């Protein structure tokens, strides 16, 4: 036990002292709590009578409870759809926008706003926006009333761009389909054309009743997933994509130029460069973003709890909310056993999903 002597012992003593608060948190608030939850998941317990051992009944009851199965389905589909969509959208945007951006501080401040505000603020504004006569339905109504304008704008845009590109190629210029200079011209022309059409009353707003989609107070489903959950997914994706895009942009700026130059020397096409240089170089960032995203979305609680006052429980229940509901929301005495079993299940599920992702999805290493 030579390491227990002299200066080393002194260092261990100080380390122990420095770590005391951490030991408290890890020991009591984490490990003790973890094992107690594990123990209670095998017990009948209502917080008042002492816990009684009940074997696997809680787990059996969980899988017999349709609400739990719904929650499981919701959590899994939420995690997979949100993580996949936000990561790929952010990646695509980052690649499309990849260049040196001035005034990044301003955009960053704007993009971070939803993540620095509390989920309750975001959730309340979300509820207010998705009222039957709320802003979302209003915007949809505007689009519906003016769909002819939109169509004419898009049609003109495609037409003018097509003509310009043909004209450019005729002159022997290496123009791409989405040539940016021509695209500005086409945008201007399409806007002007639509304005003139509507001014000459060729295009008129079609009087239609307002869009009447009930977003939250409904049990209706689309593709098996309740509409309120779709709305929450959209909210999550919309608020995370911009920040995630900034991470990817930062990652893109760090890709060594030599790699691209070497690829060009080998005659690599744009797509080959994207597929063999850019994507692999971003893999460490992607791994982190996907893993953190999966953990966060699998354990989604806040939005479910905040919308629970508006949307029916079975339309928004997730595993995390199911746990809380068994403790405080079900009426009657808390069902600690069920709650603990569901919580342990959620923890194991998180671990399994993260490991599976690591095995079959995006790896940690770049090459």
């Amino acid at each position, binding site marked *: 036990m030579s390491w227990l002597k002299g200066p080393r012992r002194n260092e261990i003593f*100080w380390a122990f002292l420095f770590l005391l608060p951490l030991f408290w948190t*890890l020991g009591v*608030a984490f490990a003790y*709590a*973890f094992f107690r939850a594990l123990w209670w998941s095998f017990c009948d317990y209502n917080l008042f009578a002492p816990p009684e051992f009940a074997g696997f009944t809680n787990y059996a009851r969980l899988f017999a409870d349709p609400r739990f199965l719904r929650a499981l389905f919701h959590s899994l589909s939420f995690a997979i759809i949100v993580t996949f969509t936000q990561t790929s959208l952010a990646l695509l945007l980052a690649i499309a926008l990849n260049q040196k951006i001035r005034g990044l501080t301003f955009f960053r401040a704007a993009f971070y706003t939803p993540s*620095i505000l509390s989920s309750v*603020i975001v959730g309340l504004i979300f509820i207010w926006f998705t009222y039957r006569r709320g802003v979302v339905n209003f915007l949809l109504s505007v689009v519906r009333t003016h769909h002819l304008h939109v169509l004419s704008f898009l049609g003109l845009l495609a037409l003018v761009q097509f003509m310009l590109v043909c004209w450019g190629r005729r002159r022997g210029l290496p123009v791409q389909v989405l040539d940016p200079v021509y695209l500005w011209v086409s945008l201007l022309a399409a806007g002007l054309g639509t304005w003139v059409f509507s001014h000459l009353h060729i295009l008129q707003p079609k009087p239609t009743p307002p869009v009447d989609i009930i977003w939250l107070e409904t049990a209706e489903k689309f593709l098996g997933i309740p509409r309120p959950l779709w709305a929450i997914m959209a909210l999550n994706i919309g608020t995370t994509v911009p920040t995630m895009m900034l991470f990817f942009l930062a990652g893109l700026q760090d890709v060594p130029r030599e790699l691209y130059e070497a690829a060009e020397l080998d005659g690599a096409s744009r797509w080959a460069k994207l597929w063999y240089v850019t994507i692999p170089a971003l893999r460490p960032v992607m791994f982190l973003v996907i893993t953190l995203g999966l953990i966060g979305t699998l354990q989604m*609680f806040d939005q479910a709890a905040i919308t629970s006052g508006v949307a029916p429980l079975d339309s928004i229940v997730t595993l995390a909310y199911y746990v809380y509901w068994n*403790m405080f929301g079900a009426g009657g005495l808390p069902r600690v056993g069920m709650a603990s079993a569901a919580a342990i299940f959620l923890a194991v599920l998180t671990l399994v999903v993260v490991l599976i992702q690591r095995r079959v999805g995006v790896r940690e290493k770049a090459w």
Partner: protein
Amino acid sequence: MGGRQISQAWFARRRRAKAAFVYVFLGAMALAVVGPFVYAILSAFKVNPLEWPPSLHIPRLWPPNWIAAWKLGVQAGNNGWLGGWAPGKFLSLEVTFLYPPGVEGEPRVEVLRPPGRGPQQPPDPRPITAVEIEELEEREIPEGCEKTFKIILRHLGAQTYPVLPLAVAGPPNSKFLRATLAPHSVRGLGTTAYWDNLASGVLGYIFSYFIQAWTEFRDRMGNPIFPRWVKNSFVIAMGKVLVALLFAPLAGYALARLRFPGRNLLFFLVMFTMMVPQQVTFISNYVLLRDGLFGISRVFGKESLLNTYWALFLPALVSSLGVIMMKQFFESIPVELEEAARIDGAGTMRIYTKIILPMAKPALAVLAILTFQGSWNEFFWPLVVLRDMEMFTLPIGLLFFRQYYGAAGGANWNLILSGTVISAIPVLIIFILFQRHFVEGFRLSGIK
């Protein structure tokens, strides 16, 4: 595809056009992200934020109304800012109605009972008021006749009132057109203009819903509760910042620099806690606090620690994120300084307080800011342990606000939005002042 010579300028134009697209797109994205928040802030000034169609016509944000509110406030209570309806004062208001052909009669003026609920209302709050009304001018327009009336209200009582609600009802089939101060609402098929407070002064007029959200909701003793929530949020956030500044660097330093058996295992455990959902540990921690921390709280005469400030500090004394952040920071500073100090005979504690902590100031700032923001926004744990309304923090209180005000067809969303805006202000200020630190924090906390 001729072998035509293409100038450098041609490519430069493409690059600039593409850059313009990028900036326009980023701007649109920023607008889409921030727009809802800006619109929410504006709507907190609206009579009905759920109006259809939604509009940006907001009388409370229209400067001519500010001037009118100022003048009325000066007339009614000698106070242009906050108003008040004081004894001996008089107040004059011009109201214009449209009289279609065949419609006759003067408008009826009625001083109303102040709206709102709660025990703070006096038994009969109607100020004793004398009303005079005279016709100022008539103007013929195609639809009929525009008549402008001057209404003079005199306070004959002996008491100052904070609120002077008024309704001016034109005869049937007439139509209210405009007044010195835009009314709160127009009712009775357009015949009746209604003001919730004519003597509000300019601040009382602009921020009336903020003031209402701040003061209206009261506990059994009659004290407003919203300020309590703000205070709770501040006390808890400040406490958490202090605790974090004290303990997280200690643990981070030990994990980064001190050698002891099981160091890697400990760090792994810290990382692991980030993956385990709070839902696993909250049950036991809830019971722990209910039983007063193994009964220790009974020494201080408390049966249970639920529903106290302690409940929010004690379980998560040190956050894993803070420890990881500090560890990464300490690993990034050169070890030579400490070694030199050690050779000079300085002990661990001395090195920590005299060398390490002063160097860690930037990281400590990041830690403090992120801790404050995290605590201010924390939702799950306060929701579990706080039961009494007086103990709520702002997020829990706001959720309660929504249930209370948003229930009846969403009638009072201006109050919910006002509360939301108030609760966002501290974090927004901190974010604007220390944006760099936030970005640093997001970077340090894993996404590098």
